[in-house]
């Protein structure tokens, strides 16, 4: 705003009143913007005071259970008499589901993005992109239903139990992993496609001029050039898979087991959080605090993935703009 120091006196008073209003509005808007900062602060405060360091009369989770035990013990039995708080089974369960989702979802998502950016006509794009939007908009509880009612009995059981003789549990990590893969495909496709399309046209033309075919241009020029953007989308998708809750809570089961068998019932970090919330644990009990310790682990893992993904993306933008 320009200063009105030379203005006549009456005008000046008038102006300052208006300026006060402007300032008040500005402060109000600043308050709105700070609401999001407050949310982050709130999340960190709640997690830290319940899990790491509590306000003195109370004790936080890690002041009662040693972090060494938490991260190395192999049993997770907070609901039994003999309580063990070893998060490894939950971590392994989480990354088993996320790993299955990544193995299926990332290649399909990437191949789809290559098709959309290098091969597809404008018309195809206009059909496919809205479909991906719809897929991304389906609530995760619906995917959980899909995993339990269709994927396990009609896909996994006939193939892996009927043909190969594995024993497929009603609740299993594989069905959860498959539906989480379906969930992350739209993320990978749309973000990787952005990265592929922002590769300069001149690079493609140079490769064609050297006699490269379309496959060679796509696989040896465009994809490597967009690699950091693709990696960022992969990280974001995996972080989504790690934080995914409802489909996993419904389809993967509720038995924390330290196993890599995808056909067994397991429990993930998010699944544990949901199941504990049902039991109405009293505020301040150790089980209640275990919830926050698990949530904090989850928060730190997803946050780290997101931050790395954003750093990669920022660097990628700098290269081509």
């Amino acid at each position, binding site marked *: 705003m320009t200063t009105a120091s030379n203005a006549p006196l009456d005008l000046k008073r008038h102006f300052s009143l208006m300026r006060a209003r402007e300032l008040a509005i500005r402060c109000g808007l600043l308050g709105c913007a700070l609401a999001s900062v407050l949310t982050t602060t709130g999340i960190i405060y709640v997690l830290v005071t319940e899990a790491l360091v509590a306000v003195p009369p109370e004790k936080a989770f890690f002041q009662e259970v040693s972090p060494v035990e938490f991260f190395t013990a192999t049993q997770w039995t907070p609901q039994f008499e003999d309580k063990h708080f070893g998060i490894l089974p939950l971590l392994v369960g989480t990354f088993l589901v996320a790993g299955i989702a990544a193995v299926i979802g990332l290649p399909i998502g990437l191949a789809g993005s290559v098709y959309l950016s290098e091969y597809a006509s404008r018309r195809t794009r206009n059909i*496919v992109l809205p479909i991906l939007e719809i897929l991304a908009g389906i609530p995760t509880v619906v995917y959980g239903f899909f995993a339990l009612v269709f994927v396990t009995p009609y896909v996994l059981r006939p193939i892996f139990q009927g043909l190969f003789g594995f024993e497929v549990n009603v609740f299993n990590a594989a069905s959860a992993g498959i539906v989480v893969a379906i969930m992350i*495909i739209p993320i990978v496709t749309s973000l990787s496609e952005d990265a592929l399309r922002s590769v300069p046209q001149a690079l493609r033309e140079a490769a064609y001029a050297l006699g490269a075919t379309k496959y060679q241009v796509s696989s040896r020029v465009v994809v490597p050039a967009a690699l950091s953007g693709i990696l960022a989308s992969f990280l974001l998708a995996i972080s989504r898979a790690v934080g995914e809750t409802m489909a996993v809570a419904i389809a993967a089961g509720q038995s924390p087991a330290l196993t890599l068998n995808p056909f067994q019932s397991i429990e993930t970090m998010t699944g544990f959080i949901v199941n504990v919330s049902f039991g109405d644990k009293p505020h301040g009990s150790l089980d209640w605090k275990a919830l926050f310790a698990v949530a904090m682990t989850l928060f730190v893992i*997803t946050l780290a993935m997101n931050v790395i993904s954003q750093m990669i993306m920022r660097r990628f933008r700098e290269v081509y703009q």
Partner: protein
Amino acid sequence: MSAASGGTMRDLLHVRQRSARSRWTEAGFEWVCACSTWFGLAVLIVLLAGVLWQGASWLTWSFLTSYDSRHPEQAGVLAGLWGSFWLVSLATILAVPVGVGAAIFLEEYQTKGWLRTLIEINLSNLAGVPSIVYGILGMAVFVKMFGTFQHDPKVLQISLIFTTVDVPLPFGRTVLSGAMTLTLLILPIVIVASREALRAIPASLRHASYALGATHWQTVRHVVLPVAVPGIVTGVILAVARAVGETAPLLMIGAAVFVARSPGGIESPGDILRNPHGILEAPFDNFTALPIQIYNWVSRPEPEYRHVAAAAILVLLAVLQVFNIVASVTRSRMRRQARW
């Protein structure tokens, strides 16, 4: 190429073989990529067909107008529909002013500087926080209020001119707690969408307004905002659609899975006129929501409840489709009305 100077028969043959193989690679690669692209459509069709097959015959009028029941044939989604309605309405009322205000601040006022960078980094990180973590925040802050009133819950009586509202402290497992949690969840989405809408408005409009002597806020209020409204509305609708399907945070703050009552006792649109006080009671009532009911029914061991869950999923998807159609209509109208 290995065929350099000789030009013998063998080299020519080699080239031809290579090109034949590469033609296969070409076609195969394109085919694989195309299949991956259409995989999404195939999944969507299978999913919809499966849900329809399981649930279509269970989707009756009485399913929409009755409460949950221990008998699958009599179970319905009335409580969930009204619960979701109150949650989403309140969350929208709370999130839109704050979200649009934040977007205006970032796009019109604080266009550079460390404060903007801080808020931007914060927003992009919030977008990646799993929704269940928001649920934990909501449970600790709104439902239990850090355990402050754990031993002596209070009831705050706020008297309006013609009636009083009883506000329980802590809020407990009420619609209000759920709505505030959802507000925090959709706030980043509303802010990002509103910022995009504001950014799409050419600077010349603002300059013209300043040139006519308008102040900063007058320019925002009377020039920028009216033009940005369609874009903001589209973004808000999509954010709200996300809130409709959210399950995990509501489970965390303790939405009841079995409720045979709508918030505020309002069971049909007519009840709002007949029982206006119910509107004030609804935010402080216990609740369930449509996705919570689906989760509950899917988890039941009786196979009949799978059909009930499928029917409820059809209702949920129909509600979401209404939101999507409204959003795309406003978007296309907005494109038609753009005049610069």
